[in-house]
């Protein structure tokens, strides 16, 4: 029942004499019970999109349908939604119980006993039953976060909206709550739209990810699709940490020619490329392998500039032997590999791992091969 459809949704803010398009013609369809993470850099319009769904911003054009019903002109209090705010927005003068009961008291005709039972149940689920009589000021950040979530789940709405709910927590608590939120969403099976700028949250939590940039929807797909088959250069660079390496190249017959290296392509890849000559070559850091010798077609001799040991792996900043200093790209190698700054090493960029993007539009023309 809790399907949510955004159909050509656009938001235009007036800005002095001109206009700013914050959200540009976004189409998203969420099925019932789906967990969709909307992710993008600051100012990409993700929060505005969420606020339009909540009814806190008007929609300039397009349509939002909740459970099949057009809700463009429905006030927020009459949409069956619950929202978790980044700042939690707990009412400071009410106890935890008051905060959780408020939504039910205002939006339903339930009796006091019924409300009390539901609040107690939700508090039990969130593990905050013993905090019900406290005021928000007496709670820790993690507890407030739980109360904010409890306040949403007690409503049992069609849709949950979450606006960066974990960004005020410290790293350890954040990863705990990430797991817990997933478990909770799984259990309650409520359609959830989750906004974040943190791509780890996007990758780990969502059934699907919607990636926004400058108000435009870049791709809606499962996390792994976004990772391995990015629709364009922006998605490729945004998802993944450390992010993908990009090299501007020109195609010269069967070879990609960059400033400091040549990269021959095989026939199947060339088929994908077609007539485009201005390209961007992308390769993920973990796909760059150390090679024993420089005999292969796709091996290059490089100089190590910086090594960042992470324990399980080393992040290595490499420079092509002919490239000027500072022009580096990133490779990750195993934590036990002995690599140190100044070393000359040979690396391989296997052809099956490369992505190719149109140099002008940024659209993907060729994505890496995936073993099924």
């Amino acid at each position: 029942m809790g399907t949510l459809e955004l159909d050509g949704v656009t938001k235009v803010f007036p800005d002095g004499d001109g206009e700013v398009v914050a959200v540009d013609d976004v189409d998203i369809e969420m099925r019932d019970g789906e967990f969709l993470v909307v992710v993008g850099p600051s100012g990409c319009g993700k929060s505005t999109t969420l606020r339009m769904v909540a009814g806190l911003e008007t929609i300039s054009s397009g349509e939002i349908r909740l459970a099949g019903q057009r809700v463009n002109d429905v006030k927020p209090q009459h949409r069956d939604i619950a929202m978790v705010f980044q700042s939690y927005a707990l009412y400071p003068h009410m106890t935890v119980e008051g905060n959780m009961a408020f939504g039910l008291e205002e939006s339903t005709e339930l009796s006091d006993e019924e409300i009390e039972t539901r609040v107690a149940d939700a508090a039990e689920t969130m593990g905050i039953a013993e905090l019900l009589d406290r005021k928000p000021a007496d709670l820790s950040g993690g507890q407030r976060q739980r109360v904010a979530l409890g306040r949403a789940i007690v409503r049992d709405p069609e849709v949950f909206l979450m606006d960066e709910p974990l960004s005020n927590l410290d790293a350890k608590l954040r990863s705990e709550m990430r797991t817990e939120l997933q478990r909770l969403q799984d259990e309650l099976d409520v359609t959830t739209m989750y906004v974040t700028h943190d791509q780890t949250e996007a990758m780990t939590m969502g059934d699907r990810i919607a990636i926004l940039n400058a108000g435009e929807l870049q791709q809606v797909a499962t996390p792994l699709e976004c990772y391995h088959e990015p629709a364009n250069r922006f998605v490729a660079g945004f998802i993944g940490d450390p992010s993908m390496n990009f090299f501007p190249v020109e195609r010269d017959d069967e070879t990609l020619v960059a400033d400091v290296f040549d990269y021959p392509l095989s026939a199947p890849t060339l088929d994908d490329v077609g007539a485009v000559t201005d390209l961007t070559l992308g390769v993920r850091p973990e796909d760059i392998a150390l090679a024993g010798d420089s005999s292969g077609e796709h091996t290059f001799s490089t100089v190590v500039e910086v090594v960042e040991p992470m324990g399980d792996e080393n992040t290595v900043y490499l420079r092509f032997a002919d490239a000027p200093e500072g022009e580096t790209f990133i490779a990750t190698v195993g934590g036990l590999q002995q690599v140190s700054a100044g070393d000359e090493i040979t690396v391989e960029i296997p052809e099956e791992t490369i992505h190719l993007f149109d140099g002008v539009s940024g659209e993907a023309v060729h994505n890496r091969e995936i073993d099924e």
Partner: protein
Amino acid sequence: MTRNTDTGDDSGDAVTDGGVAEEGQRSGFSPVAALNERFGSDFVESSQFWLPPFLLVGLFVYGAIIWNLLISLTDFTGFGTPDYSDLDFQMYSRALADSGFVDAAINTFILLVGFTLVTLALGLGLAILIDRNIRFENTFRTIYLLPMSLSFVVTAQFWAWMFNFNNGVINIVITSLGLGRVDWIGNPDIVLWAVMFALMWQFAGYAMVVFLAGLRAIPNEHYEAAKVDGASTVRMYWRVIIPQLKGSTISASVVLMVFALKAFDFLYSLVGGYRPPNGADILATKMVREAYANLNWAYASAVAITLFVMTLGIVGPYLYYQYNRGNL
């Protein structure tokens, strides 16, 4: 002595009850060390900074209050000097038997409560309207606050003109609507409300500013969360926003109530004398009239002490509230 410490808290510094303890600690073998131990290491060394103002305020404010209390216990009238040898509460019992005093006390109370409540409500209403992202917000804010900057004398003068029976603008408007003239100042049943209205006009802007500051401190998300939670605008203000204005309400009411007690200037300017219109006599006007028109010094002092106790009754709980919250 109790009162001395109480009111001393008003100035809110470490000085307040220092004077009390000085007496008690003098028995120690080393007074300086004992004092420093009791009040902090630099109590004596820093005394050259706080002691002069402490003594001056103590003498001219609290000393004067105590002297006033003493005078109220004598029978001092007319010219001459008070006789302190025979102290009793005769002036207070005389006040209770004086219907003029009782009326003035009742009027003071009505003005205090009525004016404060109405002004708070109006100020809150204005603040909420102005806080709703309206156009020309700053202009409106200035317009509403402007009356506050006027002196009581000015306000009283032009409200006297507006309330004028024959030529006042209010009666002109009323008669043009086909209703009869109202004797705003002359009718003892109405005059107090007319005064209250004028005072409200002057102070609503102040209450508005205090509430506006309170409203600005409430994050936007609270409004949004309440809306998403299903509350209508009225319910949202009633249950989520206004309860968060408790602090603003308390500070605004204390100031308004103290102003209501001091409404003397307004009434004095309204008629240009110590005798306010019938039905609008308050303790402050009664006190000044008894003292300077009738030379009943002791009786006026008793009225003054009554007024002082009423003020303490208002400020005391506020100070206690602030103290409990750790603000003092």
